[in-house]
């Protein structure tokens, strides 16, 4: 497995983490009285970052189209 393949795997895992963390932070924003603004900020930032990683993943696949997965 080449660096290209493991990078795609890593970006997928990171994207899942971003969306999962966004959901966690949003839930904390709804349920907790302390640090509400911070939790909402983290939820929005993490969601945006998840989308950005998906866009980057597409860019990366195009850029390294000619490189093998092995």
């Amino acid at each position, binding site marked *: *497995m*080449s*660096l*290209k393949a*493991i*990078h795609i*795997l*890593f970006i997928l*895992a*990171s994207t899942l*983490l971003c969306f*999962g*963390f966004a959901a*966690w932070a949003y839930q*904390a924003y709804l*349920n*907790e*009285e*302390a*640090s509400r603004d*911070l939790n909402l900020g*983290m939820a929005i930032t*993490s969601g945006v*970052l998840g989308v950005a*990683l998906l866009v*980057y993943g597409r860019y*990366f696949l195009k*850029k*390294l189209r000619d*490189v093998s997965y*092995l």
Partner: protein
Amino acid sequence: MDIPYTVQPRRDTGLYNAKLGIWLFLASEVMLFGALFSSYIMLRVGADIGEWPQRLLNVPIGTVNTLVLITSSVTVVLGWAALKQNNFARYRLYQTITILCAFGFVGIKSYEYYDKFTHYQVITNDGKVFDGHLIKRDKELVVLSGFEIDASKGKAHGVMEASGHGPNHKPHKEIEIKTSDIKKIGNYGPAHNTYTAIYFTLTGLHGLHVIGGALVIGYILWPGAGMWKTDPERYTNRVEVSGLFWHFVDLVWIFLFPVLYLL
């Protein structure tokens, strides 16, 4: 004598030597971290209700560190891609950013460790439990910035309140305790409880991997860069192998962060 398969893949494995070697090494690393993750699960499942601390760690700081590592993985792979396009200057730029990210990660982690080593729990002779950051400690007096915790719901519940990161965050106040009144005092180092023990073991081992990875990337980038002129394909393969290790280290953190900080 030339060593075979440093550039071209072997027919039987389909891989060049270094790539086969790093994957064998990473397989052993998966077993190492897998065993520690299993230990974490066993310790957590076996903990009494209310005794396993949650939200003891600072989530925003952990989030920043996660972003730093994700950035470093992107730069390490873009550096490799730049070498494939024969752009050494751009490769050097990306790898320098990777190393800076590694330093950033270790620096932030050190701050978190410092925070835990200055965070104390004090049990007095009359059974009261105080929790907070140490301001002063001498022969007569201990001064903490924190508050008395209600340990009746389980010690971990009170700790979550005192840490200042949990849902029941309260403002801290200065507490003075006479040394003669103290039954037990200790910081949140590895010996504090099973949670801090597994936390320091997992993150400490991971931190050593980050430092090791940064050293290897730095060696290839600076003292070992002469190979780019004599054998560029082999040099590119070295960069790929170091990138594979770096991705493994980052992938471990992608699992560590939610397990230790969020759950």
